């Protein structure tokens, strides 16, 4: 089995209402914060031991379901 650690983030061009709210809060708490963007973190455990196959499957999973390519980017790391 392999575990994939997936990060899904809003594309740079997309406004992030949740990130802006967190950013404003941190600024009002006097922290030296320039900006905040909020994304998602997911762990997927695959019934697959071949790293190349797992990578291919993960790209498919990310493109089809875990991210929306219209507004989001994804990246993942595989670990044994």
């Amino acid at each position, binding site marked *: 089995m392999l575990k994939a650690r997936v990060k899904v983030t809003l594309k740079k*061009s*997309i*406004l992030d*209402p*949740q990130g802006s709210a967190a950013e404003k809060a941190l600024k009002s708490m006097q922290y030296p914060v320039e900006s905040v963007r909020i994304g998602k973190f997911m762990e997927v455990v695959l019934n697959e031991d071949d790293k190349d196959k797992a990578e291919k499957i993960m790209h498919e999973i990310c493109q*089809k379901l*875990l991210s*929306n390519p*219209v*507004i989001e980017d994804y990246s993942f790391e595989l670990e044994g």
Partner: protein
Amino acid sequence: MKIGVVRFPGSSCEVDCLEAWRLVGEDPVMIWHQETSVKGFDLIVLPGGFSYGNYLRPGSIARYSPIMEDVIRFAKSGGLVWGISNGFQILTECGLLPGAFLRNVGLRYICAPQYLRVENSDLPFTNQYEKGRLIQIPISHGEGNYTIDDEGLKRLQDNNQIVFRYVNTDTSGNPNGSRDNIAGIVNKEGNVLGMMPHPERAVEEIIGGVDGKEMFLSVLKHWEGRSQGGA
């Protein structure tokens, strides 16, 4: 007219949709999302609600429900598909309509009456309105902030695909931050409509207004004209 309303786990407006169709004399059918065919139907409604709890992204999981494969085929062959609220989100997730949804600007879930302007009244869904008419139809969503890139927006504008825009009247303007005040769009062919407002909640005076009723009458008028003119 044979009308089907799809029920996903977490849908919540499907019964209101059925009721609205009954008010205009139709006998709609509920379709469970596990079914695999929409054969024989003339219109498919994807209702509002919180399919699969809106987990991951609204509509993202419903888009892979078994029924959706045939709904996509039906839409691509010219069948009428009408997505309301969560149904609109499902239509963007499966690529039948362009764009995507973000959290409302302000982060609040908004359930309130909303003024809209009818921008395109030449559609199966809107032929009973005059272009430019202001109508009041409730909205009810937390993630209705419609977003699309510059090219996509230009295509919507150039092809007259923007059907409803949020407008300012006394109290209400753009409630959620949607690009170009977009509240509803159609595909280029005009047979797939997605809208965030809930016309099925505006079909009787006793529930606050009747401005949504013409949408149901529009579809029937379109169907009548089609079946008389065609075949």
